[in-house]
């Protein structure tokens, strides 16, 4: 079974991000693999360990995106591919989905394309479902456990707001993975060494046989969120009861209950 896992590089979630001169700036915070994508890589590896096959990590972006791919390789993916073409820069989610779909088709004979739930930079969370739609494959989102894969079909559990849905779906399919699936493994020493030596091929739009998809979403710019106008007030008292009485009276005055 061949699985493609799509990964993205993002600034670390602990980064203090500010907008300066109309651009998002994360200072010297490290660029890491999107935390959600680590679950996707882990799921892909576990599935091929159980059912056989290979995991190909796929990313799109400039040279920085190689870091995310190297992390995926160090975790155990057998191959990494970077779609790296200046012509494909600054794409919206629908454009990214069209390019990733072309990348997945280029890999060929893929039974599952697995994504993280969303990327923590743009927070759209729509690329997996868009990619599924472009490919014409079923979208099986927010998977927390896979029970079985056999005869071109997957039986798994997926998250919904109201509970979990146990379902069976035909493959190939696009899946997204949630945190409950399993903690992602740490890259092994051998894995890190292998990843650092790996040559990651760059694919261009031409290699994929596509031209740049037209952006549908126009950005007018980014800004810092409005400063919260807060007056800090410490609530004190001699006893917990006194503190509670003072605090509750203040909250009641806010008329939020």
């Amino acid at each position, binding site marked *: 079974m061949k699985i493609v896992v799509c990964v993205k590089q993002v*600034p670390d*979630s*602990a980064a203090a*991000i500010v907008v300066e001169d109309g651009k*998002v700036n994360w200072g010297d915070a490290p660029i890491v693999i999107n935390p*959600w994508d680590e679950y996707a890589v882990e799921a892909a590896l576990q599935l091929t360990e159980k059912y056989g096959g290979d995991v190909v990590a796929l990313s799109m972006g400039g040279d920085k995106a190689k870091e995310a791919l190297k992390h995926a390789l160090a975790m155990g993916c057998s191959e990494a591919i970077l779609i790296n073409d200046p012509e494909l820069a600054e794409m919206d*989610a*629908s454009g990214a989905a069209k390019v990733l779909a072309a990348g997945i088709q280029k890999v060929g004979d893929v039974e599952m394309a697995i994504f993280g739930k969303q990327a923590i*930079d743009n*927070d*759209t969370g*729509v*690329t*997996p*479902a*868009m990619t*599924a*739609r*472009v490919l014409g494959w*079923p*979208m099986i*989102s927010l998977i927390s456990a896979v029970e079985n894969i056999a005869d071109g079909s997957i039986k798994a559990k997926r*998250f*919904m*707001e*109201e*509970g979990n*849905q*146990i*379902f*069976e*779906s035909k493959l190939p399919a696009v899946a997204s993975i949630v*945190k*409950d699936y399993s903690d992602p493994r740490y890259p092994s020493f051998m894995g890190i060494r292998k990843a650092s030596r790996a040559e990651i091929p760059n694919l261009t739009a031409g290699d994929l046989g596509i031209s740049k998809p037209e*952006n*549908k*979403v*126009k*950005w*007018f710019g*980014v*800004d*810092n*969120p409005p400063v*919260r106008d*807060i007056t*800090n*007030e*410490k*609530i004190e008292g001699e006893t*917990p*009861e006194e*503190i*509670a009485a003072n*605090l*509750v009276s203040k*909250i009641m005055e*806010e008329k*939020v*209950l």
Partner: protein
Amino acid sequence: MAKILVFIDQYKGEAGMASWEALLAGKMLADKLGGGLSAVIVGSGVEALANTAFHYGAEEVFLADDVSLADYRAEAYALGLAKATEAADPEVVLFPTTTRGRELAAMLAIDTDSGVLVDATEMDVEDGAVVATRPIYAGKVIAKVKCEAKPQIITLRARAFGKPEADESLSGNITKLDGLMAEADIATKVLDTEMVEGGVSLTDANVIVSGGRGVSNNAGLEVPGDITDEKEIEIWKATQGFGLIQELADVLDAAVGASRAAVDANYISYAHQVGQTGKTVAPDLYIACGISGAIQHMAGMRSSKVLVAINKDGDAPVFKEARYGVVGDLFDVLPAITAEFKKQLGK
């Protein structure tokens, strides 16, 4: 002609407040753009819900009602939605940012060769098009975006567009859609559904009481003698701490939240996590107990109206963002606060 189409996210015939909020936001847009307000409902046996949509302001409901839509399957729902979009020919399609709403908006964008503006918190109209404000980097940055194709597809953050009110005197027309997917053509079969226990949803909650790593930090707590393992003792203490949080939440009809540190330490399930890799919330009142205030947590709750912080450590960063701060042990203070709320709220 219908100008605004709103997707009503129903499950087993019930829709959450976020869908009615989307109708309210749709009404605002329809007034500005000078068009009508329609809703689309996809499901099985969901005609009764159309009346509720009318009460919340829809003038017309497109109904994709078929037994094949009893369980949520993305492809089958996406086709119902595409049929409604074709029939309504709207300028704008709005969704609540629920998991289904987000997914179907994405699929509709590909089906209609358009794009999607995700999780908008504000909408303005400029030159007949919607300019949406949406938080990125979990709210550390805000972006202004516009969808330059038709329909403009936008998902709306819960609690960001006002409180809808039903008017039971309102009614409207129902248009039933056909050409839906036959069961045999749907690649996914639902075998079973495990419902989670009730409780207040974090994203819809008016009040959230949250716990962090500090909920296990009580040296004075007497641990039962049969628990000796260090990690088990920690978890046992955390369970007591979250028990106190739950009691306060019950009195306030609040949802229970948690920091990533508490979830990573296995104090509580991931479903409760608030922050950049959890849920983004915007309650009127957020009570943070034993939460230090890491950037990634604060990013997920910075839209809360009133933030109360309770922490032993008076230097914890959470106090800088808090309207009211209590420096103290949550094990002492929380029961007293719960008792005081009961008294003042007459519960």
